[in-house]
């Protein structure tokens, strides 16, 4: 439970499906998590009446860093350090799963899965990907729907800019276009099987088309290692969409 919208919606859906007493949230803030995030996650769990635990990961991260220092020397903070945090969380979540027997619910959404925005063995771990066939824009719609009668998911979770919070001031919009545009392109590519030239004809910017298609193609290997995704659309990642890993399909 990061305080972000994907884990919030997943948590709320799980509680609805299984009962609040049967879901269990784990908060794992680091030095890069905002205070908001922890408060939002706690509020959500309290609103739902579900149990949760908090494990701070900074000390674990520092230990990893220290042990890797002789090898990494003075190389700058980068992807390795970001993913370390994600994978520490993966390890902790799986440890809880093994100890108590719960299934880990993966919280990746379809947009993220499409462009490979998750960390293998980190936030991509789990037994079932609840939102894996739901675009980011649809996750927002779901959150609003869940809050129809009363505020279950804290408003802040819904309105703040999406972020992985793996480095200071990180935002999804640093590497990805606006989700409104991205999801439309993804829908045309994934569901309607529009190729690069057809996407440009539809009005998407040529440079963006190539950038996004490249991300989607390159990250097929990640989708080979994704938990089963609940299929709710006509074309979900998983057994219904079989693509090669080694390929180059661009303008």
């Amino acid at each position, binding site marked *: 439970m990061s305080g972000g919208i994907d884990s919030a919606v997943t948590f709320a859906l799980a509680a609805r499906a299984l009962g609040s007493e049967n879901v269990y949230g784990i908060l794992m803030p680091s030095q890069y998590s905002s205070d908001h995030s922890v408060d939002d996650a706690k509020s959500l769990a309290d609103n739902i009446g579900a149990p949760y635990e908090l494990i701070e990961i900074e000390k674990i991260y520092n230990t990893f860093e220290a042990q890797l220092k002789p090898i990494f020397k003075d190389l700058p903070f980068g992807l390795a350090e970001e993913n370390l945090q994600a994978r520490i969380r993966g390890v902790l979540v799986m440890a809880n799963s093994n100890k108590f027997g719960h299934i880990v619910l993966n919280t990746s959404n379809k947009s993220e899965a499409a462009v490979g925005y998750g960390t293998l063995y980190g936030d991509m771990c789990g037994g079932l990907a609840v939102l894996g066939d739901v675009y980011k824009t649809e996750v927002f719609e779901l959150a609003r729907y869940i809050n129809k009668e009363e505020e279950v998911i804290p408003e802040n979770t819904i309105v703040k800019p999406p972020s992985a919070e793996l480095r200071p001031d990180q935002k999804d919009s640093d590497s990805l276009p606006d989700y409104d545009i991205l999801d439309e392109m993804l829908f045309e590519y994934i569901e309607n099987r529009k190729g690069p030239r057809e996407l440009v004809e539809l009005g998407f910017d040529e440079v963006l088309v190539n950038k996004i298609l490249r991300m989607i193609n390159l990250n097929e290997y990640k989708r080979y290692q994704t938990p089963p995704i*609940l299929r*709710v659309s*006509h074309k*979900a990642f998983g057994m*219904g969409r079989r693509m090669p890993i080694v390929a180059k399909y661009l303008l």
Partner: protein
Amino acid sequence: MKIAIAQLNFHVGNFKLNTEKIISYIERSKKEGAELIVFSELSVCGYPPRDFLEFNDFINSCLESVSEIAKTTKGVTVIVGAPSMNETGHGKPLFNSAYVLEDGKIVKVINKTLLPTYDIFDEYRYFEPNRSFEIVKIKGVNVGIAICEDLWNTGDNPLYTKTPALELKELGAEVIVNIAASPFSYKQDQERKDVLADNCVKTDLPIVYCNHIGAQTELIFDGGSFFMDRSGEVAEQESFFKECLLINTLDVKQVHSKKEQ
């Protein structure tokens, strides 16, 4: 003819559970006075069984389950989904079938013609397509049995060359029973209704539709079983995502008198 649709949650490979469930719903339906009881596609083994269909033992378990269910059909007719052996000597080893059970016996086996092999479906991996059509007389009514995808071509579907509903109509069918394992998607309920309504209108026949509920790994089955009248209107619809029994009486006189006109 009083018809019962049993919309149930089947567990892949769990023959004991599936058989017990089917038999208990046969008993329930009998108590309601049902004459024909309809279960869904591959109900006996669950859907999709995928490569379990390649196991001889799995297939034998299917056939044993069908025999066991047949024993409970005194005085009623039951349609249940299960694979059957292809004994023609050529083609894939199995058919995707609907078994018609009556008074303790298997009276007819109807095989699926259109085998979906796209998106999450790969039925042609395991099954041989049916090539000839026949109807079954149940309580004096000519019943045309179509399995799921069989109704998804009335002439316009570029994937297929055969039109089972039209063939069954040609042979004198007075009602179509469509047993299915149709997974959920946002638009699926509406698409199903549109396609089946199209069949109703083109054949001037009512349709009895029976689907699974539950979920198997990635696939969610929403149910949404119904009785549809010959004009394509859903006469009575079962709930979504619930195990239940839906009962309706097909007006046989109406069917016959329509024919006389």
